[in-house]
């Protein structure tokens, strides 16, 4: 904590004019707090790179229809478990624009597997901005333009096909839409609850604190699994899985606030004793002002960090719950659903490309953590 260095800036002054000037100065300092934070954040190279990666991921997810070459749900069973398409640039020893070969498949009589081979006679050049299968951007704008593709019946599955012959790349992109967003509302809710209850606990103390702390203990002692299962069974069947999962995450966020509440309370208890707060109090600043003006800037950084770190938790959580069959289920496309389908021995041995969504989970979680770290460091910009 570098609060000591800030303390002298809040030296008590009595006259109105001086206090106005002090306020202006303080505004400057608060402003510069953010500036400093940004500067500090950019020093964390990993955090910056991660932020860019995340931005790209979200951008791609928002325009999923355009970036993905195929439809996300329609099956093409004749392509089931097609390995990632090889993109060629040489044909007959000569350099070409990127292209793919045609496909031939047959069922192996010994293992019953579909075996694919390249048909070297036919070639399909990869084109940009092609007319592909129709899609609706954000469920509104109909379009057929896709970033890249090949002419039918050529197939370009850069990440291979899943068990129903659907393009894994397409599904990763569409899965990002759900995986990266579905828990956000829940996180926001638990954030608000945590900040409020933690704040109340720390500031008011006494009986309120005691009750809130006991509630925190109670909730944290309760294993989460039974709650999920009970909720999953209690929500009516007719509801679409995404709605159901969304609702569950919202309900459970009502229980998810305890961690933040404890952090906030601890922080407040600590800050209460700091010199600059005492100084502000002695100076006659009212309570609300002390909280918003002096204490809040000091731990707003922590709050932000808490959020950035809750998001990867939610992404991992979605995969875990989908694995247990409590989260989303196919045909909904999410990373958790894809990994659930990939978590079997046959896939790992024979179709490892179905694990690619796991790579995306890995990178995303890592990026969020790096950004969170960067923000945390930046939250103390005076060091």
């Amino acid at each position: 904590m570098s609060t000591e260095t800030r303390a002298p800036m809040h030296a008590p002054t009595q006259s109105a004019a001086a206090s106005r000037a002090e306020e202006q100065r303080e505004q400057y300092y608060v402003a510069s707090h953010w500036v400093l934070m940004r500067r500090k954040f950019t020093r964390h190279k990993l955090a910056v790179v991660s932020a860019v990666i995340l931005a790209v991921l979200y951008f791609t997810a928002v325009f999923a229809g355009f970036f993905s070459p195929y439809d996300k749900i329609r099956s093409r069973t004749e392509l089931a478990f097609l390995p990632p398409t090889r993109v060629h640039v040489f044909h007959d020893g000569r350099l070409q624009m990127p292209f793919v070969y045609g496909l031939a498949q047959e069922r192996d009589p010994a293992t019953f597997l579909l075996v694919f081979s390249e048909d070297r006679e036919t070639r399909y050049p990869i084109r940009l901005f092609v007319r592909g299968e129709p899609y609706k951007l954000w469920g509104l704008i109909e379009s057929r333009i896709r970033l890249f593709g090949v002419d039918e019946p050529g197939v370009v599955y850069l990440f291979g096909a899943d068990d129903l012959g659907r393009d894994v790349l397409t599904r990763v992109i569409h899965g990002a839409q759900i995986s990266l967003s579905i828990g956000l509302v829940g996180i926001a809710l638990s954030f608000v609850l945590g900040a409020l209850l933690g704040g109340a606990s720390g500031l008011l103390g006494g009986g309120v604190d005691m009750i809130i702390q006991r509630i925190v203990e109670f909730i944290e002692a309760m294993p989460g699994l039974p709650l999920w299962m009970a909720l999953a069974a209690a929500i009516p069947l007719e509801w679409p899985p995404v709605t159901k999962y969304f609702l569950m995450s919202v309900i459970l966020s009502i229980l998810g606030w305890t961690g933040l509440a404890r952090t906030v309370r601890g922080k407040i208890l600590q800050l209460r004793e700091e010199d600059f707060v005492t100084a502000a109090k002695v100076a006659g600043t009212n309570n609300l002002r002390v909280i918003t003006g002096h204490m809040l800037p000091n731990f707003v950084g922590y709050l932000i960090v808490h959020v950035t770190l809750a998001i990867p938790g939610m992404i991992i959580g979605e995969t875990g719950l989908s694995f247990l069959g409590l989260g989303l289920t196919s045909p909904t496309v999410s990373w958790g659903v894809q990994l659930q389908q990939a978590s079997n021995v046959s896939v790992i041995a024979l179709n490892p490309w179905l694990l690619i969504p796991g790579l995306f989970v890995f990178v995303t979680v890592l990026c969020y953590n790096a950004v969170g770290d960067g923000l945390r460091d930046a939250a103390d910009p005076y060091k």
Partner: protein
Amino acid sequence: MKRVLLMAAVVPLMVASAWADYKEAPMLAALVAAGELPPVEERLPLEPKVRAVFDEIGTYGGQVIVFGNSPNPWAPLVGENPEGTPTPIRMDLDGSFEPDLALDYHLSDDYMTFTLTLREGSKWSNGDPFTAEDFSFHFNDMQKAELGYVWAYPSQVKTVTAVDDLTVVIEYSEPYPKVAQDLVTYKGTDWTLYQPSTWLKQWHAEYNENANAMAKEEGFDNWQDAFSDHSTFCCPQRNIERPTMAPFMLADVQPTFRLKERNPYYFAVDSAGQQLPYIDSGLIQIIADGEARRLKVIGGEADFATIPLDAYPLLVQGQQSGNYNLNLLEAWFEGTGLAYAFNLNIKDEAKRPFFENVEFRRAISLAIDRERINEAQWLGQGTPSQMTITKLASIYRPEWGEDHPYARHDPDEANRMLDALGLGERNNDGIRLLPNGEPFIVINAFHGQTPLRAYELVKEDFEAVGIGLELRPADGSVIDQGMSGGTIDFVRWNETIGEFQDYLSSGGGHTQSLSHMANQYWIWWQEMNNRRTGASTETGDLPGEEPPPELQEYFQTQIVESKRHPYGSPEQRAASSKAWELQAEWLWNIGVVQAAPMVMVYRSNLGNVPDQVPAFFEGDIGFNLYADQMFFKN
């Protein structure tokens, strides 16, 4: 299925003259030599069961290692009894019935009296005599006295009498032609039919005056509690002291494994006079996760396993290094096919007329691309078929299944039929509109963590003809209530059914889907039938709703007519066939695929492994089933 006592008269003579002495496993011979066990002649009944082995006479020794999913009753309870307890009667692979634990059995011509004759001198695994008293004790001292936890006899049973040590007579209150078939299943075991009465009497105050003191010593309040605890019925059997008649007795129960050792008193021998089982012990390692279990089997750790077809490619690849053989068994139980049922009593008034209309069901049946589903889900190895009895059944007719007129894929015809039903209007997504203007979306609840590939393909097939289908995972109990309560539109049910199960089921079997998916009709018909037979004395309005005539005819044929005669009789076969004809005509169930094979994995040197699924069998073939004749070739 009445057996003449001729066999019983001839066999003992042969037996007595053929073998002066029996042979036993070396580990038992050692115990006999040490004086810890009576000699084999005294342990075996006077007329042991002579087991006809599948392939060859075996040799003693070895341990079979298998994997179980959990120490859990559910999976293995199905069809076969979990501890492999022998039943008085057994069905052979070819479908014929043989006395097994019993020496003989006889059902009176009016199907009212059933007589079991036991093998003289047969013993429980602790040496206690196995007598008729074990049967009457179950019925009289436990079931009727409401003592202990007892799986009751069928309600038609009036009396169970031990006429002498070897003769049990069961009397019925109404004709009960299927008793012999019943006793082939779990209904013929030591937790449903007979009890180790000598052993249990220790805790019974009427038979042991110290029972109360004993109970106190064991930490129970009274002898009833102690008795209940020791009598607690199976699944999984937890008590290693409790004697058994099975080829193997429980030696150790741990969270990670169950160990079984040979029963020195097992009542069967091979035709060379060797006491069975050949194998010394069975180790069932508990590996809860299916994938881990699969890895172990592929890695060659299991001596015996059955596995769903989708692991087949990996199994073929691992066959060399894993040192195992593979059998593809044509099967008909869960997971080897797919069929669906619409809820005829759905609460939604807009959908109900369609679900009840056979034209609608036929249109849906035409919409399903069975070939594609078979390729994607069962590696092309199943049989695209309408829902009917398994094609392995003796009464099967292709026009009920593979060649059913509505088992082909014809979406155009399906569309025309749906248009003709007044579903011509569609919304922007191409989904047909119900007369009330709502889009026609069918809720398909399924059990399990994730939908099968096939479910998603069926969904596509529905959508191709303009009917929406939403897949919803749910718990068993939720589905159960949703079906009967009329809130679930469409469920997967009974892909195919075996001939024997079809006969045995009372309100189950094929009609089971109807008892849930036409619940109101079923309730009505059942009560009507009960009043007719006098089983119910209620008067007044019948509950539920009166079923349409074809359904009444179906219930009558399937539940009443086909059960009036013993299994395999011409009358029974005719009635069963009639029921399946009705299903083929009215399509209450819509089939997709049947008879996809199961994969049996077994150690290369394991002998006497069955090469087909026994007709009485409904679930995973466990080690227990033919454990007494399997052996390791040297």
